[in-house]
């Protein structure tokens, strides 16, 4: 009997025989789980979480009852060890064995007391007895995903929402017995700050701190409205953190609010991945688990944020409580789940969000570990599918302040587009799906060591050469490259290269007339192209791209292209002056390859700019400039949302755009790159 096992966040899945250990299944699939002790139950490194519930997207029902309990193997080891101890030949050996036994018992107790409840299991000792979805926590992972969300350059006039004021007050006397807070108020008046309130817990500290510090204190004020901290003496350090909560990755930028400098960057996989890889499946999880779903998803992201905060502050020798403000961006679903708002209505037409405008909440109320009275600011939302992350891109790139027409593409699990200039901006969301990032592709994996990231194909020999993450070398078809699969950037490369070399034609079909051992049909009707032979891989299988993968890419790029086209038509423009691509994934793709296959309309490659993680940059802008928050709220309401599916000719445009590079549109900038073959079959 076989069972389905799916590992998150890598998304790798397979059918494994009944009784396989989770660790062995992971090894077979190339999912990196730390296992220092070699399956001996001692290191406790290989902990995984067994998810429970229905996962419609993955098509399985996972349950703790589908795996063996930990004790079975444990008991056997304990029994064997006890026997060994009794027959030990020397005291030294006995002591050694006893230490080992104690260690196992301790590990077992730890697991039993804390973690068994949380569905945590040691993957080496847990066997698969039914379908399971296994989440591999950050700490248990070996091959880390390459998360590239480096901070970009931002241009902003520094004027943060939290400011520090140093003041030297006069001590009260019998002749001047005015209250402590009023003295602070009087001092703040000199800075033109009036009608101020004070956080309750800060108020409780005022009298003592004032006296202990000889009436010389620094007061932290939020929005010139509320005192959120009082510190003895002169404190100049003022730090905040900007965080981009992506569907897949979360990146935090610890920032000096005086200088704007990024002090530390921390990123991690979004821990919500274990509840579903994309936004829709997480919303579905909430729908199916009405009682607990939203709470669970909110809890894991907040725990994740707190880890980022802790790690980032540790890097610069500070503590989380030194942070007085956190600014967050994320798509609408991430936004709602962070705030514990039901995302159900965002998940279906008419996709109305709970609110558009930005939100400010006290950190302690939401459980984010910064200064408890500190502020949590969440950027506004444009429309159901165009969230605070997109607003972040806008305040970073500022297309609404430019004369020229910008086409801004944010490629993530969804593709968000904005088009226009200072007069008018429109936006839309396209269902690109995960294919462009390597999801739902036969040999697709996330960008992690072992993933093929670049591919070239020689149009004469039809042989490829590729590069694997973690190595500079290009493959030669002979050397073992330890390749494990293909990540997003390479998917785009290989499809574009296959099209350029004439291996696939305009319609996406394989050219049946080419003969190469790399082009073959192992299953009838399923043409495929071999990128890496089994001996070049770490998985002992040929890594291929087949017609189904090509079709998946056609759907994704068709969605993106038709979105661009409809937006341009809406504003009556035939071209754009700049194409701004944001999203971390965007920085890895080759703009020419993407243009060759027609991911976006033809343009001079010179006008294509990669903005990097501009959602995160936008969060930093908002963190540093209180004015930009007003700008964000204005722009969020000003951008006009276009629901593509309601456009009358959408399906036709979508269909036409699925071809390479397009059924009708011309591509003067790339057509010379495509090989024209003699006797080429009709596209």
């Amino acid at each position: 009997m076989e069972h389905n096992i799916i590992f998150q966040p890598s998304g790798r899945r397979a059918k494994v025989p009944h009784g396989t250990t989770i660790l062995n299944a992971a090894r077979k699939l190339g999912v990196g789980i730390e296992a220092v002790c070699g399956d001996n139950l001692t290191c406790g490194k290989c902990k995984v979480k067994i998810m429970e519930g229905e996962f419609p997207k993955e098509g399985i029902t996972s349950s703790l009852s589908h795996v063996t309990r930990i004790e079975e193997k444990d008991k056997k080891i304990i029994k064997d060890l006890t026997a060994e101890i009794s027959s030990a030949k020397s005291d030294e050996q006995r002591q050694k064995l006893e230490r080992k036994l104690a260690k196992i018992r301790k590990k077992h107790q730890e697991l039993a007391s804390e973690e068994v409840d949380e569905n945590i299991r040691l993957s080496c000792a847990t066997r698969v007895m039914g379908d399971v979805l296994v989440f591999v926590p950050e700490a248990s992972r070996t091959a880390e995903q390459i998360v590239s969300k480096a901070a970009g350059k931002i241009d902003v006039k520094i004027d943060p929402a939290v400011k520090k004021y140093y003041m030297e007050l006069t001590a009260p006397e019998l002749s001047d017995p005015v209250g402590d807070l009023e003295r602070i108020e009087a001092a703040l008046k000199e800075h033109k700050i009036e009608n101020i309130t004070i956080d309750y817990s800060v108020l409780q500290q005022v009298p003592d701190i004032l006296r202990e510090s000889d009436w010389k204190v620094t007061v932290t004020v939020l929005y010139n409205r509320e005192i959120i901290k009082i510190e003895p003496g002169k404190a100049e350090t003022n730090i905040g953190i900007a965080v981009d909560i992506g569907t897949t990755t979360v990146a935090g930028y610890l920032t000096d609010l005086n200088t704007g400098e990024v002090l530390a960057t921390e990123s991690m996989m979004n821990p919500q991945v274990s509840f579903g890889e994309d936004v829709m499946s997480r919303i579905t999880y909430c729908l199916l688990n009405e009682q607990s779903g939203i709470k669970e998803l909110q809890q894991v992201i907040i725990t994740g944020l707190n880890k980022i905060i802790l790690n980032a502050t540790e890097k610069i020798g500070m503590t989380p409580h030194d942070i007085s403000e956190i600014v967050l961006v994320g798509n609408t679903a991430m936004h709602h789940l962070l705030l514990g708002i039901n995302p159900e209505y965002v998940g279906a037409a008419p996709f109305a969000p709970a609110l558009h405008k930005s939100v400010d909440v006290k950190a302690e109320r939401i459980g984010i570990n910064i200064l408890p009275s500190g502020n949590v600011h969440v950027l506004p939302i444009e429309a159901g599918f165009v969230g605070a992350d997109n607003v972040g891109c806008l305040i970073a790139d500022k297309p609404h302040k430019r004369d020229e027409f910008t086409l801004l593409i944010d490629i993530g699990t969804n593709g968000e587009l904005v088009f226009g200039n200072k007069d008018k901006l429109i936006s839309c969301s396209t269902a690109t799906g995960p294919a462009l990032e390597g999801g739902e592709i036969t040999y697709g994996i996330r960008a992690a060591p072992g993933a093929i990231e670049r591919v070239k194909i020689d149009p004469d020999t039809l042989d490829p050469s590729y590069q694997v993450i973690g190595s500079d070398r290009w493959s030669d078809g002979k050397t073992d490259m330890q390749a494990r699969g293909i990540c997003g950037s390479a998917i785009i490369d290989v499809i574009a290269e296959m099209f350029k070399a004439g291996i696939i034609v305009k319609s996406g079909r394989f050219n049946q007339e080419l003969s190469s051992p790399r082009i073959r049909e192992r299953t009838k009707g399923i043409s495929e192209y071999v990128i890496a032979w089994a001996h070049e891989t770490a998985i002992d299988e040929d890594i291929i791209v087949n017609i189904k993968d090509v079709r998946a890419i056609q759907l994704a790029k068709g969605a993106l292209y038709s979105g661009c086209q409809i937006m341009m038509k809406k504003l009556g423009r035939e071209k754009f002056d700049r194409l701004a691509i944001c999203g971390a994934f965007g920085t890895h793709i080759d703009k020419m390859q993407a243009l060759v296959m027609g991911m976006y309309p033809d343009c001079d490659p010179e006008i294509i700019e990669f903005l990097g993680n501009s959602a995160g940059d936008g969060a930093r802008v908002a963190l540093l400039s209180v004015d930009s928050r007003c700008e964000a709220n204005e722009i969020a309401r000003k951008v006009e949302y276009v629901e593509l599916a309601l456009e009358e000719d959408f399906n036709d445009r979508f269909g036409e755009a699925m071809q390479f590079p397009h059924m009708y549109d011309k591509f003067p900038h790339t057509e010379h790159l495509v090989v024209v073959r003699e006797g080429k079959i009709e596209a």
Partner: protein
Amino acid sequence: MATAEKEKELIAGLRDAVINYKIADAKKLAEEAIKEGADAYKMTMEGLAGGMETVSEKFDNHEYFVPETLLCAKALYGALDVLKPHIKSDSGSKGQVVLGVMLGDVHDLGKNLIKAIFESAGWTVHDLGRDVPLKSFVEEQLRTDSDIVMLSAMMTTSMVGMKKLIPMIKEKNPNVKIMIGGAPISEKTVDDYGADTTADNAPNALREAMNMLESLRKGMVSA
């Protein structure tokens, strides 16, 4: 009346126009058929449906994809619009389906392809459109006494509505067969939600529907 030879020629022309998505040709040939007094039903079934069958095969073996199929459907509808008014009502429908996209979902490309394939195969399709309220499916099935209800969803969030809807339909009419389809749907969804079947593309959906209709009719005879 057109001669047998002329009819044959027209049928072959219509087939070719659908398969090779010659939209203008399809319409022109249909008009010619009417002018020549050819049997509109025969033209539809043997010409258009015959062509669409080949399109289905091409889709199945990955020769055609969505763009080509959309164009074929266009050619098909161009001709069908001309022929339909001339089809005698007693020519008979193969079966009836209620078709629509789930509440909260406006993605109707897949649904439209299904509609084209079914109509070309001589089925009567009651198309409820997209973002359809649950009770509309129940009411439309009762009103038309359709054999099959086909539900489409492109998003997991709208798919979840099927769980509620399927028992609603079955409660009113336990004999009706339910086929579900769309990107997030798997065999497991069929089991979990109590549907009868699913298909991953329009041609397969038609095959499934034929099978279900056969079992329905057999069931009626034995009962």
